[in-house]
């Protein structure tokens, strides 16, 4: 099962990188989303997959009687998902505002901050 998920993670990250290499903002956003989910899945797999019970210690005992799932990666992913969601929503709004203001969603055409035809610096003082 670990192996299958490892392949899935690889596919997610490859797809994310492929989409990020595009010039269109919407594709880049999709790329960020897929890449982020690939990374979350990777952390999940890194905690080792088990079919055991949830990590809850029964009352009266100091530790669970049998093997339990590793709770730490789940806590890590939960944090990463929330953060990734916040970042993605900001970038989504940013891309929309940039499209409205700059009238383009092609990063090659976004040259306002870095003019393509900037003149050379003067040679004299």
């Amino acid at each position, binding site marked *: 099962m670990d192996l299958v998920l490892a392949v899935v993670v690889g596919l997610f*990250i490859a797809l994310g990188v492929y989409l*990020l290499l595009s010039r269109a*903002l919407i594709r*880049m956003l999709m790329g*960020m989303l897929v*890449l*982020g989910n690939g*990374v979350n899945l*990777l*952390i999940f*797999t*890194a*905690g*080792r997959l088990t079919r055991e019970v949830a990590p809850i210690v029964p009352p009266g005992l*100091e530790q669970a009687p049998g093997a339990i799932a590793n709770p*730490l*990666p789940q806590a*890590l992913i939960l*944090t*990463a998902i929330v*953060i*990734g969601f*916040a*970042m993605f929503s*900001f*970038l989504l709004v*940013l*891309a929309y*505002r*940039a499209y409205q*203001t*700059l009238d383009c969603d092609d*990063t090659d055409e*976004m*040259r*306002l*901050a*870095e003019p393509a035809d*900037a*003149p*050379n*610096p*003067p040679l004299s*003082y």
Partner: protein
Amino acid sequence: MEELVQTSAVATADWIVVLPLVLALIGAALALMLRNNGRVTFLLALLVVVAAIACEIGLALRIWQEGPVSMTMGNWLPPFGISFTADLFGASFALAASVVTLLVLFYAEADRSAADGRDGFHALVLLLLAGVTGSFLTGDLFNLYVWFEVMLIASFGLIVTGGSALQFDGAVKYGFLNFLATTLFLLALGLLYGTIGTLNMADIIGKAPSANPAVITAIAALLLLAFGMKAAAFPVNAWLPASYHTPPAAISALFAGLLTKVGVYAALRSLVVLLPATRDILEPVIALVAIASMILGPLGALGETHLRRAMGFFVIGGIGAAFAGIALATPGGIGGAGAYIFHSMLTMTALYLVSGMIERSTGQVDTRHMGGLYASSAPLSIMFLVLVLAVAGVPPLLGFWPKLLLIEAGVAQGGWLGTSLVVALVLNAVLTLIAGTRIWAHVFWRQTTGTGKVPAPRRGLLRYAAAAAIVGLAVAVGLWPDFLLAGARMGAADLADPARYIAAVGLAGSAP
């Protein structure tokens, strides 16, 4: 059960490690609620930052006397609970960040108008400070990722404050590439956890040597890429000159002083302290990155006419110098890198603040249309020249000492690596001097050209005072460097031999 509770209780004095963060986060929340009244949030932000500075001075003094201080959250024993561990570098960088933020708050107050009303500027600045301070003080890699994201989301808010087309253009490039960098960092974290099963920094130092070296090398390479992107080191630096000049001067000064430095600090800590064996393998790559950044940074500034974009290239050159310290990794080199980060936080912020004042008094952003400012504003020209000399590393200013430490370490190291780093450091100083004085001559010395309007001096005592305070600080530390050098030596000793750091966290027994 009872022993567990007893061993993990946190001493009251140890809370000082998280106090600056807690204050900044509470301050940010309050400032967000009170954002209808800019005057109140300004005073609140001042209060919070001053309190954070007081805590950090106390923390730094305690570390100076007793060594690294650590606390672990929530009654969980160290490798499981989230640790906050401050050593001298972390605490003094956090202190520098707070001081810089305080002065930028004053500067921004002079720039802000009633129309800026409820944009949440102060809340975002405090949140940014919390993220930066957290990154400097945390002792857990996943927690470092969280603080990176706190810093990132606050900087997203700040970079679009004002909402001009130029800012959206810059923010798209800044946003995507920085989010990508933190995602790569998270990827490396997942792999590291899967390999050695821990994310506590002190625990990683103990467990990494026994893990599969090939896997650890791949992880370290990913970390180098992620932190290199955050720090804007050479091949992945393109976002910085594309975005740092777009927001108002106060905000870009804050970014230049704080954000890239956190990236370098994270690279320093993760490569030199956490995975030292792997750093040796990656050494040629790090040296190449350092040399390329050091030489191409000032060359970029030389070819740039936009004032604040040129400053962005100086930031990149400085990042190269700090990476030179990581490539050397002897106690002298680490001390040099630490001192350089400290210097760069103060100097780069001041440089952007002064650039903002130049833009204000000439009404231009391009050096081709500026000129003759010397006649109308002598203090401005003096401050700018002093800062250019400090960035280049001319004695006796602040920038000289870290470069001296780095060159000493390079010479001591010898070989092709040490020699080429020393040559690059000297070239960086010369090129920075040429580019900086050239800009100075264009802006201040040259007669006003036909295209530019005649500069008129404007009021703004608060702006002058804030910028002059940082410049004064840079000159004073440069003139009396004993404190800086002793601090660099002590901080570097703790990074080169992390025994005291591990003992502070409480994992001394588990180290090999």
